[in-house]
């Protein structure tokens, strides 16, 4: 893949060289296509084909197995899921996770980005240390938080005991109303730095003169942030929102490790339901249909964001 990447970069370099004649340009284009072919073939193989294959699978009754007959069932898999109460409960739960997680990440991320941007003492250390939670693999993060929340040995209980906020250890992950919030907290710790870094990078590129002019005109810090920086940050917020919303809606690994969808399905998310159907229950058709329902939802969310937040004139 690295070689493909190199070829890809070189193609662009060739393209950017001054063109001497039309025929040379044609020659360039041919070379470019030739060079891109291996990458395109790989991409078709690893991306497009599985998508098509899964799409076909979603219309089949496809039990797991090497000798299992697959029968065409039309839209049955989709209809079964859309009629299933568990599906809608799971969608609701996933939306709760998504809104909670992305909302907190955006709020905290923006606050921290603004803090770093104002360059207080130790801001460089803060920026570097932000990368650590983000660099930790999700699976490791999940295992770490499972121990933090552990009822008998967990650091959370230890901390709260020392602060005098609780007088005996609490089995946090056994409460139906609490478990999802704790998963959200673990996820926010892990991915908020991404949002903070994206927004901080965007803040760094904003023209200072606008801010200064507003200050001269008598706008206070809050007004300057709210009415000047925030609108200018909109494209960066849009990127962070789309990336994080899509990721949060497809949350799986952190739930798998921390709660395994318990207690009593209270942390069962839509991707977890897809996994259960596809692998644990051997219903690959249902799993494929669920995958496409997830895709439809995430694309819709992205389109809504772009419709309401994207202003082409601001990016020019």
């Amino acid at each position: 893949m690295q070689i493909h990447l190199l070829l890809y970069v070189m193609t662009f370099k060739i393209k950017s060289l001054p063109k001497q004649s039309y025929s040379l340009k044609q020659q360039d284009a041919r070379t470019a296509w030739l060079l891109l072919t291996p990458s395109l073939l790989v991409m078709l193989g690893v991306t497009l084909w599985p998508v098509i294959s899964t799409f076909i699978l979603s219309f089949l009754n496809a039990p797991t197995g090497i000798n299992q007959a697959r029968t065409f069932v039309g839209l049955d898999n989709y209809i079964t899921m859309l009629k299933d109460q568990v599906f809608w409960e799971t969608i609701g739960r996933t939306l709760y996770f998504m809104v909670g997680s992305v909302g907190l990440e955006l709020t905290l991320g923006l606050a921290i980005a603004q803090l770093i941007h104002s360059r207080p003492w130790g801001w460089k250390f803060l920026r570097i240390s932000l990368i650590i939670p983000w660099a930790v693999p999700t699976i490791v993060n999940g295992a770490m938080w499972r121990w933090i929340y552990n009822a008998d040995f967990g650091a959370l209980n230890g901390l709260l005991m020392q602060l005098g906020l609780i007088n005996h250890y609490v089995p946090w992950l056994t409460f139906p109303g609490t478990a999802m919030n704790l998963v959200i907290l673990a996820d926010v710790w892990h991915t908020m730095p991404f949002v903070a870094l994206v927004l901080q990078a965007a803040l760094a590129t904003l023209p200072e003169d606008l801010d200064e002019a507003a200050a001269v005109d008598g706008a206070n810090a809050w007004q300057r942030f709210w009415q000047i920086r925030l609108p200018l940050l909109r494209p960066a917020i849009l990127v962070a929102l789309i990336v994080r919303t899509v990721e949060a809606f497809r949350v799986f690994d952190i739930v798998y490790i921390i709660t395994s969808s318990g207690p009593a399905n209270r942390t069962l998310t839509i991707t977890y339901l897809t996994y259960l159907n596809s692998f644990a229950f051997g219903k690959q058709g249902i799993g494929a249909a669920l995958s496409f329902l997830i895709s439809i939802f995430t694309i819709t969310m992205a389109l809504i964001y772009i419709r309401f937040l994207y202003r082409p004139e601001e990016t020019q």
Partner: protein
Amino acid sequence: MRTINRICMMLFAIVFVIGAVGCAPKQAAGPVTIHILTMDQAGLKPAEIDQIARDFEAQNPDIKVNMEYLGYDFIHDKITTGMAAKPPAYDAAMIDVIWPDEFIKAGYLLDVTDRVTPDMKSGMFPASWNGVTRNGKIYGMPWLMDVKYFMYNKDMLQKAGITDPPKTWEELVDQAKTIKDKGVAEFPIIWSWNQKEGVVCDYAVLLYGNGGSFVDASGKPAFNNDQGVQALEWMKKSIDDGLSNPSSVSSDENAVEADFLAGKSAFAVNWLFQYSDSNDASKSQIVGQAAFAPMPVFQAGMDAGVKGSSVDGSSSFAIMATTPYADQTWKFLAYLASNEVQMKYSKEMLPVWQTDFEGDALKTLEAANPTNPVTVPAFLGQFPFANERPTVPYYNEASAALQLAIQEALTGVKSPKDALDEAAAKWVELAGK
């Protein structure tokens, strides 16, 4: 420009050459490598199995064994995804006693009936063969015979002034109250009741100990009858009364072990591995304090003639149907299950050979490891009461419904009766499909 183009063309050619070499058919030269998937939890530790594999390789220079270890929870899905590849990702895998029906239906398991020798067939426990035999065909090699055991902490019971471990769950409640009141343990009992298979195993222990069963004679779900509901109500009450550790609802067997080995629980229900770990000073703060007692039953169950109750947690090794190396793999599995190997490593896992538990062989077995004089009688006392979970191809989904029901009852989301009724309805629906 021309130079750049030439360089690019050369790079392009290199990519193609590399690709072509990568796709070239592999020559079958040198020793054959077989890939075996097994668990890193109950039974032998990875280092021990690795040693067995190296010993096997020394005796069979034409076969190399590549072991892969995973937590129990990941094995099932690894097998199903591994079977999508041709040849399969694994030549053989450890299979739990609840999976054969699903895997046989899926065509994953090789019929090894003709490979089993009469010595193996007659020497190993009939129960171990039952686990891998369907319609007279054998689909695996017995490997680990395990049941849930009742273990208690001798020192903690002594501190609370209790001389004998409980025989019934009602006695356990009384003893746990004493232990709690005397401040010996905040939560005297720990269970694996998180939303995984472990909770079904523990429920099976209690259900059958109350005279109940998963299904009736006609195969219809029966766990939502009075015996089943009472067992679940008892589970819920033991948490509400502060006798069972409330963290049980989020604990698997490893968490149960961690709690018991830290000296926080006086009673724990777990697989055999917990006992040897309890005597391992690097993991345990209760070295020498753990002891076995027969699994208690409910008084009502005892009155109805129930003499004991546990759940079968045995596993075996099965050869994947599409492997090109069935002969080599079987050779290794036969070595793994051989009397010699099973006897040598009997500290973590008692042999599947019934012949080892008789006559002079029994003396040899008891002398083979320092813990064997304790674990052998415990096994012989408990295994005959091992109950089976339903042997149906849709077991995983049925179990998931039951796991959910139990968790809903334990967390107070639903009443035990309503929750179990819903799970039973799901079982009926699954059976009808």
